[in-house]
């Protein structure tokens, strides 16, 4: 009997007009399975069926057959399936139940009624497996995004699941964090756990995967033999327009949140027509630098100069922006508030959102939401664009659209600064890479070296 067996599975969300899953036939028995597909194709929905969150938590209409570890998902509550199915969500910030690392890892074991001695052993093992033993006494609130994601995995691994389901686990991780998480995942799979991973940064998972599945239109098909297609960089660094005028400048800037310096004595500038990529490990100060350039965080020392004009700022959490009833009105709101010329249609088209223009942004998948948030901040020709992890949860098509939008900003004499872990975006869009670490910035050229 396969570990996971779906037959003619279909599912429709409450009040949705169309099926999110439309006749899924799937049998998986062992190893690591990579699930790819465009934003909104149904990947997260399929994953949620694996542990019964769909239909038990979300409601809706489900049909066909879904069996996981010989249990009927449609008839078994999530909390029962959780004994054998571990689930790691996309957003690590919202998964922690307890405020300290050790306690949070133990949460699932407490629920299972595991004796304390056994619990201590399992917590230690899970922390070690995920490479976060040194964090065991830390408060969850002090962890970086990457550390939190590994904590979420540790909390699930401690329960020793037979099936592990991960939804975009690498979307916020730096290369080091990604490698550590994939290492832990690989160790779990070697230990006999079956894993199903949905991930847009599929090239990172593919080399360790036993199979690859493509999700499109609510259906699953095997990937092409050579895996998902890697997009070619849309814009080479040599094509970048030469900088002619200063757009922003930091002079001897020391900055950090709550008066604690994260960046020290920074001298950095960007010109018009430039797209600067800020890279560096989680917690290296990328967001701090963006907020300082934006004027949202006053520097603790030094000064910041900006060319007059509108600044577009995308925070890490796209939901921070979304408050209108439709995608179109969300973009219109920015145009109206900034007294900018132009119409929402052009931006909808550019970001590939025309088909969902009249939908509530919060009903969309996380990748689509990210695109709506981008469209909302980029509307109205800003002169300086500051984007914090703009490709989080984005598929290749959306990344290409973003690259084109950034090129348009640069061609019109604007400039952009991106804080990102996404090497494909850096390769496609950036004219210069600034690597942050230990509170200082290192400007790296040529671009190819930085991407490598």
């Amino acid at each position: 009997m396969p570990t996971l067996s779906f037959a003619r599975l279909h599912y429709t969300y409450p009040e949705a007009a169309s099926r999110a899953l439309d006749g899924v036939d799937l049998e998986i028995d062992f190893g690591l399975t990579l699930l790819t597909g465009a934003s909104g194709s149904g990947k997260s929905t399929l994953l949620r069926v694996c542990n019964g969150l769909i239909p038990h938590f979300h409601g809706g209409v489900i049909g066909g057959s879904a069996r996981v570890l010989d249990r009927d998902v449609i008839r078994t509550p999530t909390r029962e399936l959780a004994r054998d199915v571990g689930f790691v969500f996309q957003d690590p910030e919202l998964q922690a139940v307890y405020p300290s690392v050790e306690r949070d890892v133990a949460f699932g074991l407490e629920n299972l009624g595991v004796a304390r001695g056994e619990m201590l052993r399992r917590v230690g093992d899970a922390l070690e497996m995920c490479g976060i033993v040194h964090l065991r006494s830390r408060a969850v609130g002090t962890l970086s995004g990457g550390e939190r994601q590994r904590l979420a995995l540790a909390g699930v691994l401690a329960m020793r699941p037979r099936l592990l389901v991960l939804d975009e686990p690498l979307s916020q991780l730096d290369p080091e964090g990604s490698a550590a998480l994939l290492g832990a995942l690989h160790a779990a799979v070697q230990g006999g756990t079956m894993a199903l991973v949905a991930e847009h940064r599929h090239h990172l998972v593919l080399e360790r995967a036993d199979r690859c599945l493509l999700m499109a239109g609510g259906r699953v098909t095997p990937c092409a033999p050579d895996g998902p297609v890697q997009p070619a960089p849309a814009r080479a660094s040599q094509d970048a327009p030469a900088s002619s005028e200063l757009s922003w400048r930091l002079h001897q800037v020391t900055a950090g949140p709550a008066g604690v310096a994260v960046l020290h004595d920074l001298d950095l500038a960007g010109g018009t027509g430039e797209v600067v990529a800020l890279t560096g490990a989680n917690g290296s100060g990328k967001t701090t630098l963006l907020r300082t350039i934006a004027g949202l965080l006053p520097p603790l020392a030094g000064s910041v100069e900006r060319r007059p004009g509108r600044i577009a700022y995308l925070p890490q959490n796209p939901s921070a922006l979304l408050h209108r009833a439709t995608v179109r009105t969300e973009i219109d709101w920015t145009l109206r508030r900034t007294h900018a010329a132009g119409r929402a249609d052009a931006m909808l088209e550019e970001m590939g959102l025309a088909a969902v223009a009249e939908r509530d942004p919060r009903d969309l998948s996380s990748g689509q939401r990210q695109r709506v948030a981008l469209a909302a901040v980029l509307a109205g020709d800003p002169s300086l664009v500051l984007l914090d992890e703009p490709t989080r949860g984005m598929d290749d098509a959306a990344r290409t659209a973003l690259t084109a939008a950034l090129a348009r900003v640069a061609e019109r004499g604007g400039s952009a600064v991106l804080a990102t872990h996404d090497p494909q975006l850096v390769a496609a869009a950036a004219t210069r890479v600034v690597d942050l670490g230990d509170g200082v910035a290192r400007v790296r050229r040529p671009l190819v070296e930085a991407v490598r």
Partner: protein
Amino acid sequence: MSTRSLAVWSASGLVIALSTSNPVYRVVVLLCALNLLLARGRRGSGARILLTGIGIAGLIATLLTLLLSHTGRHVLVRLPAGIPAIGGPLTLEALAFGLATGLGIAAALLAVAPLTLVSQPHELVDALPSPLARTGAALGAALNLIPGTLRSAAEIREAQRMRGWRARRVADWPAVAVPVVLTAIEGSMTLAEAMESRAYGTSARTHFSIQRWAPYDTLVSVTALLGVAGFLALVATGGAPGWFPFPALSAPAISVPALLCCALLVVPSLRVWH
């Protein structure tokens, strides 16, 4: 110090503060609670905000009593009788009674404050008896959402400002309030999903951390229980008289045994200062 013995101490202080109108005993409870907070309060636990809130609550109680109770012999000032509710004489007796009321509120709140300012929220949850363990875990998780919601509110305000939002009139606020509320709801839903996905509610819960009960906890609990039991007995037998300043202001009567009962609440902080 065990959270359970702290809970016994808090309950004792609360009962004493609420069972008497005598400001002297209330002051003793208040001082014992302040002493405990100073001795054992966690850094960064929000004590300053709480103390400010308690001060404001006490002040409001005092003002309301002064303005609304127009009895007493010693008139401080007369407000025009035409003013609804507060018009009439404001008396020294009403002011004194208001202060005593404010003191009672402050003493009661401070008595329970150590539960959150000395203990961690999850310690409090762990201290709950087994039948309440599930509810406690849900409560702990909900408490854990608060800092995140505050952070997201600040982030949302910043992000909307960059899109041209300015808080000029009431109609501008939905641009910030709607995402804050929706993000908080979504955060709660995701947390609920995460808890369900980690077998929350499957079976009887066990606990990772053990609430250790030391002889010192027995001392704290026994002295607190002796204090409250003795005080209630004295109140019931007229040995710990209350206080009522009307119609003319008088000094509150003080009973030494009742004072000693209240003073037993100082035990938890003695060890730290020692």
